């Protein structure tokens, strides 16, 4: 195919802007349906077949609402921050080992850039809360950064362990290795658990939705946002959901292959992880920030260190 057409397709359709946004809305629908069925409810039902258009309806509704900026905050920062978060996550989406342009988006070290880009939204939440000039915003932002200190180190260690085994920082290499040796998932079980918990914390979903604890601080960093800016923040959150799950799927569950098989494999593996995260959301209560820090440093960090040691031992003994 014509090179320009390929690039345009990848930038805008898959894994580009519209394709990713559509997948994000689909992930939102799956999450809400699973959450509802566990709670003996039905979830979205009427918009579209089985409610599948409900997330799209929510975004459209948000876009049509009044957009208020607090008087005391810096207009530029307040308006720019949601776009910054969206841009970061969209760029991370382009680095996933899918699509037709592997020559462009796959290079040694892209895993690190991916992790960095996925960590940016948390800093943006902090800044957004800070610039809201409301008590709830500042409190939520501070909690977001405190939570970052809790889960980020175990999460990074867990995600980097397969990289150690592969001997490369390149995401496509890692996924190729785990695709050709499916049993490696058992060797990485500890890392997989820590990574799933870390991803739930990064996405700030129950049991780790402390920054946005609805019954305590109303909306956390997003309290003062409304209208279009809130729509962008909402989309960013859903997008990070898909991108994070896809990253974990490509690292631990064997990636997506190449050619036309990518699309179904991507859907199946990513949505498997989304399903696990939704079940976790329905089955637990929210933790308190000091309980989370204690849990992370007492259990998650040692677990990932143990996993790291295990992989080193495996490599030294030439088993892997």
């Amino acid at each position: 195919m014509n090179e320009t057409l390929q690039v345009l397709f990848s930038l805008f359709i898959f894994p580009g802007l519209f394709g990713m946004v559509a997948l994000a809305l689909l992930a939102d629908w799956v999450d809400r349906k699973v959450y509802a069925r566990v709670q003996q409810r039905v979830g979205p039902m009427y918009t579209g077949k089985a409610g599948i258009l409900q997330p799209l309806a929510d975004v459209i509704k948000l876009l049509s609402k009044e957009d208020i900026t607090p008087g005391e905050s810096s207009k530029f920062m307040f308006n720019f921050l949601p776009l910054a978060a969206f841009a970061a996550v969209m760029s991370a989406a382009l680095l996933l080992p899918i699509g037709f342009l592997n020559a462009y988006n796959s290079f040694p070290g892209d895993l690190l850039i991916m992790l960095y880009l996925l960590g940016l939204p948390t800093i943006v939440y902090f800044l957004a809360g800070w610039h809201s000039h409301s008590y709830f915003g500042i409190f939520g932002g501070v909690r977001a950064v405190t939570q970052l200190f809790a889960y980020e180190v175990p999460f990074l260690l867990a995600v980097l362990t397969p990289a150690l085994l592969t001997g490369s920082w390149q995401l496509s290499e890692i996924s190729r290795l785990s695709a050709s040796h499916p049993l490696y998932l058992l060797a990485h079980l500890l890392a997989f658990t820590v990574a799933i918990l870390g991803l739930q914390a990064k996405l700030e979903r129950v049991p780790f939705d402390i920054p946005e604890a609805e019954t305590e601080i109303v909306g956390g960093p997003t309290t003062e946002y409304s209208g279009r800016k809130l729509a962008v923040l909402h989309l960013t959150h859903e997008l990070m959901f898909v991108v994070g799950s896809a990253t974990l799927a490509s690292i631990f569950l064997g990636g997506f292959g190449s050619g036309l098989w990518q699309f179904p494999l991507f859907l199946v593996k990513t949505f498997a992880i989304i399903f696990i995260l939704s079940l976790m959301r329905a089955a637990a209560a929210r933790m308190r920030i000091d309980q989370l820090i204690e849990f992370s440093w007492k259990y998650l960090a040692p677990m990932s260190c143990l996993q790291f040691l295990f992989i080193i031992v495996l490599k030294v003994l030439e088993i892997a």
Partner: protein
Amino acid sequence: MGLVNIAVGPQHPALKEPINFSFQTDGERIVSADARIGYAHRGIEKGMEQNNYVQGLFLTERICGICSHAHSMSYVMAVEEAMKIEPPKRAQYIRCIVGELERLHSHLLWIGVAAHEVGFDTVFMYSWKDREVVMDILERLSGNRVNYAINIFGGVKRDIDAEQAKDILKKIEKLEKRLQYYIDIGEHEPSFVARFKDVGVLTSEQASSLGAVGPTARGSGVTVDHRKDDIFAIYHEIDFTVCIEQAGDALARYIVRARELVESCKIIRQLLEKMPEGEIKVKHPRKAGPAEVVARYEAPRGEDVHYLWADGSDKPFRYKVRAPTLAAIPATLEMFKNAHVADIPVIIASIDPCISCTDRAIALTDSRTGSTMSWKELRDFSNRWYADRSRR
């Protein structure tokens, strides 16, 4: 940072009704707390002085939605004492059945709200689904899900026939099997226990000296249950246990309420089996008194005290309602000391706040000018205000 003043309420997602708690915090620790009530103030006490006793029956029922039967019962007990009439036994049984059903639905509602405060929406959905069973029973008995209007001076207005009794028994049996699940959650579910354990601790001495009542006091080891302590309605003929826990934290209060659910099912079964035949009401006079009566009833949230000063006419001279949540507020302010900010919703939820009960009393005038607005004028005013605003 220095001390920060936080105001929780009157509008806040943690509160189901408007109340204002203001805290001074140092980081995530609370240093001091104060409460301000009066946002759901409707002038009921003064209203009761202007209306006769039968009209007062409607007023007292609407003090609160969830504990409406409790207030109605206290009122009816007080006025019957002043009128010197006694309702027949069958009426007492029916009153107690509705009272225990109300306790069931109130505690199930509370379990859902408490779970929602800690982000555990699954338990919220489950408990409110079970609550629908109780609401169906109440609707079958009285025609309404809340505000049952089943009391009248001298008895009750509606009877329970054999078919309704059989239906109630069947539904209660099915419900009882589900109730063990909520006790299990309070004892074994780690994320839930972690949020409720050692939160909002109230020692036994503090509970008695600060005047806590109901499950708030029973969770701190104070043995006070008005159904056992005092003789009213028909409770002295029924066999049930009072649920006491010693720990004094929010988890203990949760366990007390979860166990009380099981006890209420037991009581309802006994009431339906022992209910005698007979009349359901006697005639009542129009005037009451002169007498001074204090009536106490065990509402789902604790002891509900109504004071009536009847002067021999058909209107009360002075009527005072002390709802259980008002008694719990000083205890709550004590619980806030040295708590985390994240524990605020849990502490507020653990006393089972029913702010509508707390706020009745006096007159209906309006704000700045001191003048009153009729409903029509209020509507016109608000229409004009919004029209002006959109033009700007």
